[in-house]
């Protein structure tokens, strides 16, 4: 069963030694997680909660003090495991003198892809990341959003099953965020598994299937969005075309039905929607 899972983490512990006082800091404690194919999983937590440490463990950059991590049944860090993982770092750095296309070709080459394989895959990635218009320009002319798209492209270049996105939307404008979210949904529809971290809870809500909250290296809660956010004793009713007077009547009627609290707030458009309307 575990061998078919894109990611299987069992009782993992990671510790850092603090060289200045020879003490050890537990970065991740007794962490377990199973991810299924075609799901988007969000890791939430403040800085230093162990999110990036988890990614480094999965990629084999650090080794767990205990526990095990398997990617499609392969031990984390092995070449076979890394062939199944695409990584988008929080602050990606690429040689500035290369063009977007050259970066993708380089990372394709590092993954052992031949020219033929690369050609076909490049076109699909350029389309998915909407890079085509600037792929031939050198990286030093790129905005943060463009670089993030290149970074997404390099993570996908070897067609991995599991994708690790570290703060993929940080620093992006709303259009960049939309593009990233769309890409994630598209990848999910293709059966890819995505594990990502974010500080922006609203964005997590709209894209993640499941979520876990990490705090000081420990997993506090884990579940699907529906399970975690559903409140059985509360509901939202949206109405349109009523006057203030009629609304007061509705409010009174709800109290008559036995409601303990009723809130009526006139709805206004969000600044984000306004921005999208003008920039799309």
């Amino acid at each position: 069963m575990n061998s078919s899972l894109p990611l299987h983490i069992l009782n993992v512990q990671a510790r850092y030694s603090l060289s200045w006082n020879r003490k050890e800091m537990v970065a991740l404690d007794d962490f377990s997680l199973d991810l299924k194919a075609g799901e988007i999983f969000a890791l939430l937590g403040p800085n230093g909660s162990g999110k990036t440490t988890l990614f480094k463990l999965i990629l084999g950059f650090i080794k767990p003090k205990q526990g095990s991590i398997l990617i499609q049944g392969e031990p984390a860090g092995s070449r076979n495991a890394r062939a199944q993982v695409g990584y988008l770092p929080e602050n990606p750095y690429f040689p500035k003198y290369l063009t977007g296309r050259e970066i993708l070709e380089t990372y394709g080459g590092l993954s052992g892809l031949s020219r033929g394989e690369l050609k076909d895959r490049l076109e699909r990635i350029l389309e998915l990341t909407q890079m085509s218009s600037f792929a031939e320009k050198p990286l030093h002319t790129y905005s943060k959003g463009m670089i993030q798209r290149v970074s997404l492209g390099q993570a996908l270049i070897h067609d991995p099953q599991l994708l690790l996105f570290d703060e993929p939307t940080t620093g992006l404008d709303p259009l960049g965020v939309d593009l990233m979210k769309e890409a994630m949904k598209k990848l999910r529809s293709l059966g890819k598994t995505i594990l990502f971290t974010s500080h922006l809870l609203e964005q997590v809500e709209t894209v993640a299937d499941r979520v876990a909250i990490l705090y000081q290296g420990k997993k506090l809660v884990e579940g699907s969005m529906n399970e975690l956010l559903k409140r059985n004793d509360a509901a939202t009713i949206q109405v349109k075309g009523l006057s203030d007077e009629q609304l007061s009547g509705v409010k009174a009627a709800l109290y008559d039905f036995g409601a303990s609290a009723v809130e009526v707030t006139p709805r206004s458009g969000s600044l984000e929607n306004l921005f999208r309307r003008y920039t799309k």
Partner: protein
Amino acid sequence: MSSLYLRLSTLTGLTVRDLLRQNVLYLILIPAALTLLTLPLFTALTFEEQIKFMRDFCYGTMSIFGLFLAIIATAQSLANDLEQKTIFTILAKPLNRWEYLLSKGMGIGLILFFALIILTVLSAGLFAYQEKGLLEAAIGNATDRLSSQDLQRFRDQLWNPALLMAVLILYLKLILMVGFTLLFSTIASSSLFTIFTSLMIYLIGHFQSTAREWVMGSEGLSVGMKWGVGLLAVILPDMSFYEGAERILLGATPGWSYLIPPLGYTFFNLLWILGLSTWIFESREFR
């Protein structure tokens, strides 16, 4: 094309492009070229002295600047990847760590090769220029001491094909230093430490053969001490393997078999260095 070849060639290419974009290459190559261009300013009295000086000067320039390039570029290369965190995106790909190290070494090796070609061509140009100047001076001089035999001897010494062999031996020596620097890079966290340690190894390497012989031959040393020295001798390089280049500069004209000892010695050193570097690098954590 195999996947391994593609991975190696891609990272080697990236290393070469990175180095070509870095100032360190030009900071070393340009002063080297400028130094070479000062050659015509030095004139000695006899032709023999002049030939010796020209050869020594060009070889010395290649040797010193080549050493700086080999050590600094290698130390910077790995340190830059760590500092800019490029190593995370590179090693996240299905690439073995030994492939990473080997590609870095090959990239720097290629840069060194081209740097030596440039400096060799420049030296040859200077030789031709100097030769022309010297001949003109000789023809214009009524009390000229040059016989046609002298002229031929002068030309033969100046254009001795064995000089290319000396450059090849120098290249092998520099490649060995690239290997050592790469080994220290896998342990070190700062490029300064790597550069310093590599320069120390270079210096100590010149004493290796004599020190080993002296310690092994001296009486009163414990077996443990001798084993310790023996182990050190395994790690430290013996730079006397590359002294053949200097003998060529002094006029020796050996056959190509002359290259076998430095070639074999460099190969086996690089083999153990790559083995040890990989071992260390495999267990290194990147936080």
